[in-house]
């Protein structure tokens, strides 16, 4: 079993729709959770960085963490064609010396104009 599971998609939605992206994890030592956006042939770009359970909002993006269920989500409101990309969830422990990021496989998202 992988430590982080993410539906690879692909996911296609019409412009303006709300997008929901999800990851589950098995390692309870993970304490920090991130969402990255990666355009084709580019490096990942950090979108959201959260620690505690609950919601964190930044513009059209909302990150949700449920540590009791080991489940994280990213919601995109009013989706735009420019949101078309691969979205990667990533997480890390808080242990000094064990700070590597563990990624999901990524979900490929297409916003249809």
């Amino acid at each position, binding site marked *: 079993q992988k430590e*982080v599971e*993410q539906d*690879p998609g692909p996911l296609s939605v019409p412009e303006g729709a709300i997008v929901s992206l999800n990851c589950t994890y098995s390692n309870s030592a993970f304490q*920090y959770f*991130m969402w*990255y956006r990666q355009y084709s*042939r*580019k*490096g*990942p*770009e*950090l979108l959201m*960085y959260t620690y505690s359970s609950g919601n964190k909002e930044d513009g059209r993006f909302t990150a949700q963490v449920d540590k009791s269920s080991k489940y994280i989500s990213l919601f995109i409101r009013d989706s735009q064609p420019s949101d078309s990309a691969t979205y*990667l969830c*990533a997480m890390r422990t*808080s242990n000094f*010396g*064990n*700070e*590597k*990021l*563990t*990624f*999901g*496989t*990524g979900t490929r998202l297409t916003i249809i104009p």
Partner: protein
Amino acid sequence: DAGVTQSPTHLIKTRGQQVTLRCSPKSGHDTVSWYQQALGQGPQFIFQYYEEEERQRGNFPDRFSGHQFPNYSSELNVNALLLGDSALYLCASTVGLGGYTFGSGTRLTVV
């Protein structure tokens, strides 16, 4: 504010050759990590450098080695290249428990 810069952007090598990839971290960051990303997969952790020492290593063979310099920049070396080493190699930097900033990567093709 310059982010993470990597060089070269693209590279083609022959099986058995050696390659060196370079990374300059974001200003203010002191920790550098390297990741390998195969097509359609999430990045896989290779190793992390802090204070010029390898602090943590992923499940990669000894053919993969690295170095961090006093100015925090870093190199990734891969010896005896295999076809399976073809991938996007990403460098990421951070400081403390902050988020990781990634470079655009080096796309390595082994033929």
